[in-house]
C-alpha cells in the first residue's frame, strides 16, 4: 500500500536543502581547485578529516562556530599536503589525490578514537526574520541552520569571484593555460596552492556539517562516499557555480525522496531506491554533454618547461 499523501512536500524540499549542503560545500571547493587547473581526488579524505576535526574542536571548546573553523583549518592543512606534493614536488595529481583519500580516512579514524558515541551540542536553526514567516517559501528556504545559508553564500561568492574579479580572472587563466599565465608574470604555483587550500577548507566544512549537524555524532566512515559525489557534481555542473547548486540539490533530493518513498510504503524493492541517487548521478553525467574542462586540468606545471 502506498500513501504518498504522507509525504509533506514542504518538509521534503526543506530536508533536500539540508541533505545537499555537505556535498554542495565540498563540490564548490573542488570547483575552484579544478578551475585553477588542479584535479584533487582527495575530497573524501579532506571531508572526513574536517568532520573529525570539527567534532573534536566543538566538544573541547564547546562552540560549534570554533568547530567549523577547526574543520576548515583541518581540511585546508590536509589539502596543503596535497598541494606541496603535487605543485612543489610535482607528483602525479590523480595518484596523490587517491592517496589523500585513503590517508584521510585512516587519519580521521585515528583522531576520532576517543570521540565515538559522544553527543555534540545541538546547533539551533536560524530562521531569517520576516522571510521565514512567508507561507510555503518561508519554511523551505528560510528556516535552516546557518551553514545552509553559508553554503549558498559561498556559491554566490565563487560565482562573483570567478566571473567579475581580477583575481578570479587570474585563477581561470592559470587553469586554462598555465604556461601563458606564467609568461604574463602570474605566480602559477602560488595561485594553485591557495585554490587547493580553499578547496580543502570547503571540504572540511562539508564534513563538519555531517558530524555536527546532520548526524550529529562522530563515527568512522561517516562521509560514506559524499566526497566522490561532490567530484561528480563538479563535472555535472560543467565547472559553473550555479549549475553546481542545481546538481547538489538534485542529488540531495533523490536521497531524501527514496527514504520518504520507503516510509510511505512504496512497493519498489528497497535496493532500487537505495541506488537511485547514484544511478541519477551516472545518468546525468552520461546524458548531459559535459562542458569543456579547464585547459590545464591535472597537468603539472614547472616554470622550466
Amino acid at each position, binding site marked *: *500500500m502506498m*500513501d504518498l499523501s*504522507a*509525504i*509533506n512536500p514542504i*518538509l*521534503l524540499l526543506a*530536508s533536500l536543502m539540508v*541533505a545537499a549542503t555537505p556535498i554542495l560545500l565540498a563540490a564548490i571547493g573542488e570547483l575552484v581547485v579544478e578551475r585553477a587547473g588542479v584535479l584533487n581526488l582527495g575530497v573524501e579524505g579532506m571531508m572526513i578529516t574536517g568532520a573529525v576535526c570539527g567534532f573534536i574542536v566543538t566538544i573541547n571548546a564547546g562552540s560549534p562556530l570554533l568547530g567549523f573553523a577547526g574543520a576548515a583549518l583541518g581540511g585546508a592543512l590536509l589539502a596543503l599536503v596535497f598541494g606541496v606534493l603535487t605543485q612543489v614536488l610535482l607528483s602525479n595529481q590523480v595518484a596523490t589525490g587517491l592517496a589523500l583519500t*585513503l590517508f584521510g*580516512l*585512516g587519519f580521521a*579514524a585515528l583522531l576520532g578514537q576517543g570521540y*565515538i*558515541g*559522544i*553527543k555534540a551540542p*545541538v546547533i539551533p536553526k536560524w530562521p531569517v526574520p520576516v522571510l521565514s514567516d512567508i507561507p510555503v517559501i518561508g519554511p523551505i528556504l528560510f528556516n535552516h541552520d546557518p551553514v545552509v545559508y553559508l553554503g549558498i553564500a559561498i556559491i554566490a561568492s565563487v560565482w562573483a569571484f570567478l566571473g567579475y574579479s581580477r583575481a578570479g580572472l587570474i585563477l581561470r587563466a592559470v587553469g586554462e593555460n598555465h604556461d601563458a599565465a606564467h609568461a604574463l608574470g602570474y605566480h602559477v604555483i602560488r595561485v594553485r596552492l591557495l585554490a587547493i587550500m580553499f578547496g580543502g577548507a570547503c571540504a572540511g566544512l562539508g564534513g563538519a556539517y*555531517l558530524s555536527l549537524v*546532520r*548526524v*550529529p*555524532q562522530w*563515527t*568512522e*566512515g*561517516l562521509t*560514506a562516499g559524499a566526497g566522490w559525489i561532490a567530484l561528480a557534481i563538479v563535472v555535472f555542473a560543467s565547472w559553473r557555480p550555479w549549475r553546481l547548486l542545481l546538481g547538489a540539490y538534485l542529488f540531495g533530493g533523490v*536521497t*531524501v525522496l527514496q*527514504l*520518504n518513498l*520507503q*516510509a*510511505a*510504503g512504496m*512497493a519498489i*524493492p*528497497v*535496493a532500487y531506491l*537505495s541506488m537511485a541517487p547514484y544511478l541519477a548521478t551516472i545518468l546525468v553525467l552520461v546524458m548531459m554533454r559535459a562542458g569543456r574542462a579547464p585547459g590545464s586540468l591535472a597537468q603539472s606545471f614547472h616554470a622550466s618547461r
Partner: protein
Amino acid sequence: MPRVEALTTKGMKMKFKKLLAGTGIALALATGAFAQDKTTVGFVYVGPVGDGGWTYEHDKGRQAVEAHFGDAVETVFVESVPEGPDAERVITQMVLQGADLIFTTSFGYMDATINVAERFPDVKFEHATGYKTADNVAIYNARFYEGRAIQGHIAGQMTESNIVGYIGSYPIPEVIQGINSAFIHAREVNPDVEFRVVWAYTWFDPAKEAEAATVLIEQGADVILQHTDSTAPQAAAQAAGNVVTFGQASDMSEFAPFPRVSSIIDDWAPYYIARTQAVIDGTWESTDTWDGIPEGMVSIGEITEAVPAEVKASAEAMIAAIRAGEYHPFTGPLTRQDGSVWLAEGETASDGDLLGMNFYVEGLTGDIPQ
C-alpha cells in the same frame, strides 16, 4: 575501509603486540605469549564499543568476565568488524593468538564462525543471534520480542498522530519478530495505530539512522522504534522535540527522561561468565540458549515520568506477567498479513515459528523486502 585492531586491558604490552600483529614473527611470538594456565576469551564486535547500544552491552559483558575471574582469564576484543569475509580473518587471528573461547556477537558472523570452527576443533565458539551450530559452536540469543511487546504497549498509548516509525536493520527473523511484537501490542491498546517501517540495511551507521529517523518524523511519526545500534535516532527525536523513543540494546539513559521513555537492555554478563566457567571446568558443550525477561537476559530500562502513571503501571504488569511465564507476547488469535490464520485463540507461537518468522501480522502495511 575496515579498521581492525586488537586491544586488551593489558595496555601497552598488547598495543605493542597489535603493532606486530599480521607479521609472521609476531604470530609466533603472540601464540607463545599466552600461557596455557590462563583462559583467553575473545569477543568480535560489529560496531565500536562506544556505540552506546548493542556492542556497548556486549563489551560490558566482557568487562564483567574480567572482573569476575580476575587474573585467571584474559579477554581480547576486536571492534567494528564488517560482517563477511573480513570477520573470518579476524576470528582466525584471534584463535592464533591463543583464544580458548570466542564470542562472535552479530548475526552476519554466522558462516565465518562455522568456517573457522571447522578448522580449529579444540577452540570453543559462541555465535550470537544465529542458528547454525557445530560440536564446538554454541549459539545464544535473547528474546528481544518480549521487550518489544512492552515498547509497543507504551508506544500505542503515547502516540498522538497514531503513526509509529520503525527503523529496521535487516529483514531477518529477529527484526521481524520485533516489528510484529511491537505492532500487536500497540494495536491492542490503540486500534488506530499504524507502523511505518524503513529498512536501513545496517546495524550501525549513525548518518543513515539519523536520516531515516528524520524522514519518519517528517511523515508524522511521533514515536520512533529502532532496531539499529546507534543513538543517532535518539538525537534526531530530541531535535524534533515532541517525539518519543526507546533505548535499543542498551539503556541510552543520556536521552532520558525524554525523548527516551524506556528501553530494552541486553544483559549478557551472566551468560558470558557461566560459559567462561564451563570452559575452565572443561564442561563446555554446544548449546542453544534463547533467554528473555524471565532469565534476565532481556530487561526493561526505567520507564520515565514522561509516561502517564496508568500506562506505566500496565506496562509493568505486562513485564511481571512475562517474567512469571504467564504471558507470551505471541498469543493467539493472530492472523498473518495475508489474512491466513497463524495462531488460534490461546495458542502461543513455537520457537521454530519465531526463528523462521518471515511474515508480518495482520494490520501492518508494506512488504518485507526479500
